């Protein structure tokens, strides 16, 4: 009974999360699809939690521990790298609506220059 409720509760979460995902992601415009992908890279870094949970098990042998270190490192790469690179990308979009007249070029050039340095 309890077992069934744990499974069914989680299945309900699974299905609802799928629907919410479809609704939320459908609203992301084409322009932002690359940041969306790197952002979802960061979010699936959540598998880090799986590694952390298993590290709490008693009686892990050395090989299991070595594997888990890799898993935790992989998850962290996803989270840290994913969020940082998404932030970098979105920052370039953020400055967009400002230069309507195209005459505040000096401020923009400064920004582009610093981004260029970070990028090379």
């Amino acid at each position: 009974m309890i077992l069934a409720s744990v499974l069914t509760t989680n299945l309900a979460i699974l299905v609802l999360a799928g629907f919410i995902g479809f609704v939320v992601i459908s609203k992301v415009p084409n322009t932002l699809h690359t940041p969306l992908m790197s952002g979802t890279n960061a979010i699936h870094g959540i598998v880090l939690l799986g590694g952390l949970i298993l590290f709490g098990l008693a009686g892990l042998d050395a090989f299991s521990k070595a594997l888990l270190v890799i898993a935790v490192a992989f998850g962290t790469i996803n989270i840290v790298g994913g969020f940082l690179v998404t932030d970098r990308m979105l920052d370039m979009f953020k400055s967009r609506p400002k230069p309507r007249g195209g005459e505040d070029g000096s401020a923009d050039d400064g920004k582009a220059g610093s981004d260029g340095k970070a990028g090379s």
Partner: protein
Amino acid sequence: MTGLPLATSFLQSESFIYVLYIVAFALFIQGLRGLSGPTGAVRGNRIAAVGMGIAVLATLLSPGEGNWGLIALGIALGVAVGVPAARQVKMTAMPQMVALFNGVGGGAVAIIAWVEFRNHGSTYGSHLAVRTFESGPFVEHAIVHTGALPTYVAIFSVFAAIVGSISFWGSNIAFGKLQEILPGRPISLGSAQQIVNLVLLILVLAAGIDLISGAHSELLFIGMLIVAALLGNAVVLPIGGADMPVVISLLNAFTGLSAAATGMALNNPALIVAGMIVGASGSILTNLMATAMNRSIPSIVAGGFGGGGAVEGAEGAGEHHGTVRSTSASDAAIQLAYANRVVVVPGYGMAVAQAQHAVRELTKELEARGVEVSYAIHPVAGRMPGHMNVLLAEADVPYDQLKEMDDANPEFQRTDVSLVIGANDVTNPAAKNTPSSPIYGMPILEVSDSRSVIVIKRSMNPGFAGIENELYFDPKTAMLFGDAKSAVSEITAELSAL
């Protein structure tokens, strides 16, 4: 735990940790909602990052958590690799980066499933096993009452292992192709490929079912991981470079779904929700990309484009050798300067040449002369969804100049000059006119409708699809051969000298 102060036991209580997980996934969803427009996007990303921080913290608070030194080591390794990678990657290399990150995520999922099997595999398929989970916030809950690891845990765990392994290897191959470590052209076993794939799939499913029903063999589990790895290789290797946006999106979905399965196996709501959202995102993008190429996902995965495309491309090359008119930077500059309306059609060639800044300079110069400039962006321009928009944003191109395909196409007829920079297949009129072409039916930018066309291209080599482009033989098309960046800079220099 009886000796601990009350506050600690509250912080470590299952309900409190569960609430933190709920807060975390609420923040993920709220963060992604921010991505619906560029203004809220930076904030959205940061909100999602805060959610991630909370989820990690909640897990570290869980009772029985241990091996702190090793956890710190893993996180330190991840930060040491992830931070410089994210800081230094060039915007042109984003597809590789995303492919690599997909793979890393899939790899983590497969490893976690493996460790879980090493430690609990003996209870798979058995309902009599003694309680073995000493910790893990919620799995414990289920086991305390039944004394066995339920079968569904084994099912989700095996699913995660298979899909994670496929995603890891498939993504690494995609990375290799995009980074040009591996040839971008399809590598396949020809007609035997689909049979091989089918055999691998059957093998991997058989191993999985055997494990779920109680085969307590780690060797079998490792064998299953290896066959899944082979399947990942076998599926992605035959896919040509032109289909990469679809493949990356698909692998993104795979990694997400495998993370959700891990969440089901470990009974962790944050993992389930985050995994499903990523799965949904990957699925939507896969569908979108496939539609933009007029291709079905099964036919891409079956590797149809590769062989057929290359053969037909070779035939096309024989048929077509019409005359190609080449032009010079100064002629191109004059042509552009006296136009009323210019549409820039950027493609991957512009990206590899890092020419986006040079293009921006050119269009600024044209605008100063009163020329109306816009950019027509094909959904699959570049090597991943939305790639071209990022590159142009990096070069400070204003939003309102970026036109999506459906808005751009009707306007070509009143365009004086279309400037095609490093785009090839997405401008090929064969997609509309030549039913025998492998890209027939693919939606294209109707560049050939404009009054004249200038194509900047390195050479007459065909694009990633391996097909000759009829546009280049059109009498109103002039070819400017050269590297995109230097060619565009030359035009700009000529233009300012006019």
